[in-house]
């Protein structure tokens, strides 16, 4: 049994390497699960999946690893006469290097990124070059504690999973099975793809995924903004009501809350580098318009222009030259001139941009003025925080003057960031 346990530990380690997050308690669950269902292969397969895989998008990775670690008996027929027919050849290959090549030869040519023997007693061996996509994995593994590298790895895994799934769809296997799973995996992939390597295709896909996001976002925002019906207890009215019942405090009366209005001013940079992030944000906010008293959207490159969404297309007046040099300092000046009626105590200003100003005057002092005039200025930056303040980025100067500066590198972060503004 100890051997099986080792094998399971190695299996879990391999899954972790492939980017599946598995906690210690989950690996204990996995052991208990196997103990409960026994070694019959199909059952053990499903038992491990139930205990370890909490996200259908990871299922493909899991299945692949399982097949590698716990080979189906027929592949090894004749080689292990001692193996009982029905049982999993657990720990196969371990310490028997000579028998390893067999599955590679007679197994149908599957796509696999790992060496087929797979028993991680020789995890170092993984660095030996064998199949595509492997070098990336090993270099990533070297910086495993680097959270960002991990994310990237996860993303690339997701994308790979997605491609495989598409392939299997087009091959026409399993007619209905997996449609929903594939959709979910696709959605998650796009939510986590960083904006800075978005293509037009990705943008279209993200827009398709936006509808449910908008709904979710609106609910979340609405909840934040919704007034709790009751405020503090109103003592006088409560006592008065109690008088009618001989002094028993049966009904409590509460003070009504004062209504809270939020006006929103959005400034979004639509110059080359950050335009996808900006457009997606504008579209999200357009969907959640009802949550605010008034929403004024602006886009800018070197000038300010009013922005609106008409049938899903961004319309700006006046039109902007998208290839001009960004100048946020000037944009700030223009906004400040228009402040009457626009920037009030109930206004929240949301800026979406990377703060790269082509070394033109940053005018952080105007941001300070705006901060004073409004309830808050919130800055969303689609750039990686590691790059903030490098080169021509003036974000550090602005950071001092705004209430909140949050990264919004992908759709997921964007949602989280937007939800914090209200």
């Amino acid at each position, binding site marked *: 049994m100890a051997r099986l346990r080792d094998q399971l530990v190695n299996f879990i380690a391999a899954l972790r390497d492939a980017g599946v997050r598995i906690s210690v308690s989950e690996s204990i669950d996995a052991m208990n699960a196997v103990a409960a269902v026994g070694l019959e292969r199909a059952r053990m397969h499903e038992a491990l999946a*139930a205990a370890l895989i*909490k996200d259908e998008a990871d299922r493909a990775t899991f299945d692949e690893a399982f097949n590698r670690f716990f080979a189906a008996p027929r592949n090894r027929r004749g080689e292990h006469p001692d193996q009982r027919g029905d049982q999993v050849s657990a720990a196969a290959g371990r310490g028997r290097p000579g028998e390893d090549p067999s599955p590679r030869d007679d197994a149908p040519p599957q796509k696999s990124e790992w060496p087929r023997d797979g028993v991680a007693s020789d995890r170092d061996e993984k660095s030996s070059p064998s199949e595509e996509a492997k070098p990336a994995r090993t270099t990533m593994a070297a910086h495993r504690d680097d959270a960002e590298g991990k994310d990237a790895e996860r993303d690339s895994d997701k994308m790979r999973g997605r491609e495989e799934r598409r392939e299997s769809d087009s091959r026409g296997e399993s007619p209905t099975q997996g449609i929903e799973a594939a959709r979910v995996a696709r959605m998650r992939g796009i939510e986590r793809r960083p904006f800075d390597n978005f293509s037009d295709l990705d943008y279209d896909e993200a827009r398709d995924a936006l509808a449910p996001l908008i709904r979710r976002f609106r609910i979340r925002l609405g909840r934040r903004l919704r007034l709790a019906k009751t405020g503090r207890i109103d003592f006088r009215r409560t006592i008065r009501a109690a008088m009618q019942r001989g002094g*028993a405090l049966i009904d409590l009366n509460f003070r009504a809350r004062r209504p809270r209005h939020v006006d929103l001013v959005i400034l979004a940079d639509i110059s080359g580098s950050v335009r996808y992030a900006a457009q997606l944000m504008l579209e999200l906010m357009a969907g959640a318009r009802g949550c605010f008293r008034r929403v004024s959207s602006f886009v800018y490159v070197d000038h300010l222009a009013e922005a609106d969404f008409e049938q899903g297309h961004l319309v700006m007046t006046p039109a902007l030259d998208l290839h001009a040099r960004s100048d946020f300092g000037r944009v700030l000046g223009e906004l400040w001139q228009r402040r009457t009626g626009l920037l009030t105590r109930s206004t929240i200003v949301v800026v979406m941009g990377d703060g790269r100003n082509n070394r033109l005057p940053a005018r952080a002092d105007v941001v300070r003025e705006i901060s004073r005039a409004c309830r808050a200025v919130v800055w969303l930056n689609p750039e990686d925080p590691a790059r903030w303040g490098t080169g021509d980025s003036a974000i550090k100067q602005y950071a001092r003057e705004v209430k909140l500066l949050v990264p919004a590198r992908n759709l997921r972060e964007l949602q989280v960031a937007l939800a914090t503004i209200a």
Partner: protein
Amino acid sequence: MQITHEQISDGLKRALYVTNERVETAIFLALALEKPLLIEGPAGAGKTEVAKVLAEILHTELIRLQCYEGLDEARALYEWNYQKQLLRMQADEQQGLRWEELSEHIFSRDFLLERPLLRAITSPSRVVLLIDEVDKADEEFEAFLLELLSDFQVSVPELGTLKARERPAVILTSNRARELSEALRRRCLHLFIDFPGTEQERKIIELKVPELDAKLAAEAARFVGAIRKLGLRKPPSIAETLDWARALVRLGVRELDTDAVRTALGVLLKHEDDRTKVESKASTLAPRRKSAT
């Protein structure tokens, strides 16, 4: 009571729940390891049904907590019966009881309104607790569930910690309206139920609508499988497929040709867009054979 894998498969069969190894194993493990089972999948794939069937297999009560936006502890766990407490206070006052005696009275179990979660915990026998559509509840509520799901105990400040006498079998379902937290996922076993394949759906139809001709059932299953792949706004659920099959029986349809498909489409599709989409393709989707003129 120890339950075996075979008992689960038999029970599912007897309850007319068509399933596969994946579902059986997950349910068995949830019972064997006494862990909550989180079921995800598209709406109408039979997630909630699992809990109902499980209660049937275990011959026990199903306690259901339907989650929604704004669900709070008072609705899910317990609430003090405020009015009853007041009445009691007045009654006690007339007897001239001291404060200590009085407070002992009014914060006892008699004055507690038990909501589903507390009921599941305090139940003397093992029950099935269904926490339905947990993704619709707020994040705060999800965090609150963590204590319950890992230790099967809840804290009521005035009474102390209440621990489950018999751990309930817990089923959580989610439609992914929002992403659930890692912490919650970690505490649960996971099962993904997708729409059934054509063959499985045919079995379901045959089991639940035995009046329908076997050949027609197979065609219906194939047709539903095909329209689910069209990317509809709301793909038909299993329940809708069954309704449709029943409708076909009542309409006396003998062959599933284009006209037959059109007449009862409203049972299957609940959006006008979907309907036009399918109708435009009905001729290619309907089983090839045309009705003999």
